[in-house]
């Protein structure tokens, strides 16, 4: 297995270079270093000299990908792409255009992102599985039918609606929770309850429907019939056998998103004032801060690759038939 993981990690290197190159190309097709300088320097009193000084100070005064004026390998290394990309493979993200250290920002913001994403995942998983099992228990009845209808309705509503409705009713009308904000420690609980609740409710529709499909597939299998034939109650059949076997696709689906929990949620964090990585990314895109955008895309890609490797490992753990070679 070790060789397999090592091989997958080595595969990640060209993928990350490719992602980096793609991000670089996409970003600089839309923005030139001059555009970035103008945006950072503001709209007033910006002279061509000021733009040149900003570019020199931030290392954007070099050619993008190839430096014909240089010699040897410097033709490739003395470029914006190399100078700004090489260090990322050592997780040295450098500084954003506002001068703040990106690595420090990521470390600081991971906590708030996780404070929302982790409870949403755990609570959402429990709620969705319970609801899905309930529908499976009452399969082919009106309860199941209306459960599915409810899921479709919940899926059809925009995520933004849940946020606005949650803030309006729970925080504004009923004064039960703060409408937005964040705090560390135990004080933070009152701030995360509402975004967690809203995110869990927003995810019930799609989550419960998917799990219902998985469980329905399991419930028709021979081992379930055997369990019933042995005289086990339906609850025991569902919880001891169907749930256990249904957990294989659920677990692998969850493992792949685990590393991405660090990346946070763009809209939720923005509306609830959560100082996480999601809002960091969206701010950087709006501010055309290439250094931050590139760092976040790189981190996201890296975490996704880690998630896929973890998924493969989890397959081999939960399903003895799978061997990693």
């Amino acid at each position: 297995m070790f060789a397999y993981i090592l091989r997958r990690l080595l595969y990640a290197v060209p993928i990350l270079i490719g992602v980096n190159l793609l991000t670089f190309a996409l970003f600089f097709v839309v923005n030139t270093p001059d555009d970035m300088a103008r945006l950072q320097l503001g709209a007033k009193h910006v002279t061509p000299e000021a733009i040149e000084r900003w570019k020199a100070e931030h290392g954007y005064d070099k050619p993008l990908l190839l430096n014909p004026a240089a010699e040897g390998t410097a033709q490739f290394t003395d470029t914006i792409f190399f100078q700004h990309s090489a260090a990322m493979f050592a997780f040295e993200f450098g500084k954003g255009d506002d001068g703040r250290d990106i690595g420090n920002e990521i470390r600081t913001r991971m906590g708030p992102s996780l404070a929302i994403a982790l409870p949403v995942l755990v609570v959402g998983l429990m709620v969705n599985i319970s609801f899905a099992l309930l529908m499976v228990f009452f399969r082919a009845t009106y309860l199941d039918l209306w459960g599915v209808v409810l899921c479709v309705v919940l899926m059809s509503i925009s995520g933004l609606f849940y946020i606005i409705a949650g803030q309006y009713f729970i925080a504004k009308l009923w004064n039960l929770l703060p409408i937005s904000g964040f705090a560390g420690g135990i004080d933070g609980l009152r701030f995360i309850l509402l975004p967690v609740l809203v995110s869990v409710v927003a995810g019930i529709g799609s989550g419960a429907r998917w799990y219902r499909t998985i469980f329905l597939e399991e419930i028709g299998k021979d081992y379930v019939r055997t369990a019933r034939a042995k005289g086990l109650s339906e609850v025991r059949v569902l919880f001891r056998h169907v749930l256990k076997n249904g957990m294989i696709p659920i677990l692998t689906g969850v493992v792949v998103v685990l590393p991405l929990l660090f990346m946070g949620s763009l809209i939720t964090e923005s509306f609830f004032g959560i100082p996480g990585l999601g809002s960091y990314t969206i701010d950087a895109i709006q501010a055309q801060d290439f250094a931050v955008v590139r760092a976040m895309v790189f981190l996201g890609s890296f975490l996704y690759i880690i998630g896929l490797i973890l998924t493969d490992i989890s397959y081999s753990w939960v399903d003895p038939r799978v061997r990693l070679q």
Partner: protein
Amino acid sequence: MTRTGILLLGLGLSLLAGCSDSWNNPYPDSPSDASVLYSAFSERPKHLDPARSYSSNEVEFTGQIYEPPLQYHFLKRPYTLIPLTVEAVPTPRYLDASGNVLPADAPASAIAESVYDIRIRPGIRYQPHPAFARDAAGRYRYHALDAAATARKSRIGDFEHTGTRELVAADYVYQIKRLANPRLSSPIFGLMSEHIVGLKELGAQLEKAVRDNPDAALKLDDFPLAGAEVVDRHTYRIRIKGKYPQFIYWLAMPFFAPVPWEAEVFYAQPGMADRNLTLDWQPVGTGPYYLAENDPNRRMVLKKNPHFHGESYPVEGSDEDREAGLLADAGKPLPLVDEAVFSLEKETIPYWSKFLQGYYDSSGISSDSFDQAVQFSAGGDPQLTDSMREKDIHLITAVAASLWYVGFNMLDPVVGGLGEDRRKLRQALSIAFDYDEFISIFLNGRGIPAQGPIPPGLFGYVEGVGGLNPYVYEARNGRIVRRPIDAAKKLLAEAGYPNGRNAKTGEPLVLYFDTMASGPDAKSRLDWMKKQLDKLNVQLVVRGTDYNRFQDKIRKGNAQLFEWGWNADYPDPENFFFLLYGPHKKVGTGGENAANYDNPEFNRLFERMKDMDNGPARQQVIDEMLEIVRRDAPWIFAYYPKSFGLRHGWVHNVKPNLMANNTLKYRRIDPVLREARRDDWNKPVLWPIVLMLITLVAVIAPAVIAWRRHERKTA
């Protein structure tokens, strides 16, 4: 419900309640009777270094921490400069090319240099900061730290010792030199290097020093600057090329606030920048507040500077100020608020809701909540709605020192040029664009139709019918009324486009409007613009683009019509007229004249007006300039925006001052009243929780019953 469930519910509810009766209180730790002001910011500041910070969301903080030599009087209008850290507002000495002193009324052409001797008041001290901390032997405690020592420090509060020292003239000179530091990219370096003697040369020297030794720290004291010198411990001298009366206004901005060299040495130590411990994020000033908590991702907290030199609330004000209670605190020591908490609030919905709950002391009014807050009387005056008045919320309005306009590219072959036909075409279009209607539809009345480039409140602006733009408006019964569309049609025909068609070719007149506006809101505005030209049978093609491409088009002169705006840097008409000065054309020079307007007569008058002191003679020149730009119509003067704000009844001493950025020190809060109102407005409503529990039981119970039946069923 099980006993564990009840316990958990009880624990949750008690956690929610915390120490407060209000469960939704976002400040659980704050004592209810503290004199703390609560506000919000929607975008985190990028720079807090006074050499770099320029945008309003940055000077909102730097203005309270740093003290330039001058400030604007809080109450007086028109805006008046008064001393802040200096003994008196400096008046320049004028010198000719030989260094001889000239009289104050010497012509600008004879003046080679303006010299400002600025004397600061002794005894002003900096906020407590580790950069000043010394040990028993008098050595700086934290000026020689290595990476290992700074590794454990992530906040300024992690340093055990702090110190202070007296503000000296050298600190002001040091900051002026910092404007030329290429590592700081100060936004005003280009402008100031044109005015301050030797600043441009200093910039070149520093750039070379950085190029030669990229990793070394710049020791600014090693680089002399002829235009900024220390005269004695409390006096410094600034030398300006020629006559530049507007320079005095720059002395009221944080760009000219003092920076202690100790702070730069402190922050330059290894490992500091990696933890965002930089002067750009951790300011060190002499102002009434210091930045006690700096988490721009969540909240920023300003606390009273214990070493503040002391200042009193103004005792002079108008009768209106007295009636409004703005002189109730006259003579009291400042600042009146102990602490100000600014929370990051990106979205308008939570911001507005928190304001209504009493958790923000003041608020702007977004379009979404405008109808909820404001209604217009029969006379067109804005008034608060009943629901706002019931909450003792107060409305504050002010016309901003800003202007929006639609620019014509004067280099364009269709709409540009100074020929009579092009001029009439632009005048016709100026009449057709009914900005009175625009203000009513899209701005909820928050604007005043513009009559020229100078907004109200600035010298040169003329109130009422005396100040109308006669090419677009006319006076009827003492009121300013837009000229009829027939007048525009007549002008259009005289311009060679009768009924919107080229008289020679018969082709319809098609104009192109470049904009970076997008989205549903923008679409309705753009549709409105098309409709305005439909009145003249002229077609308008909208060319939407992003910010960068739009800037690029303007820079290269590829746009035809475009929308643009300007906020005043200082209250002087020069700051608006220079946007139309020929040598400042965008194309070729990269200046601020986006319309590329270049009228030699206007340029000549501008050069004269900019150096004049306010008075009848200057007003006469301004009137001549206004006549030229109104006739040439390089811009469609759209509107002066009007800002509407709200404050709660417990917030006092609020008077819009659109030039000053250090007004926090004048605010007063009544925390007892605020707490009582918060408690009253935020009582938790518990029935939804009970209803939810009942619903849950109602859903689960039949399922449990059904399951039991299912289990008891025989096969």
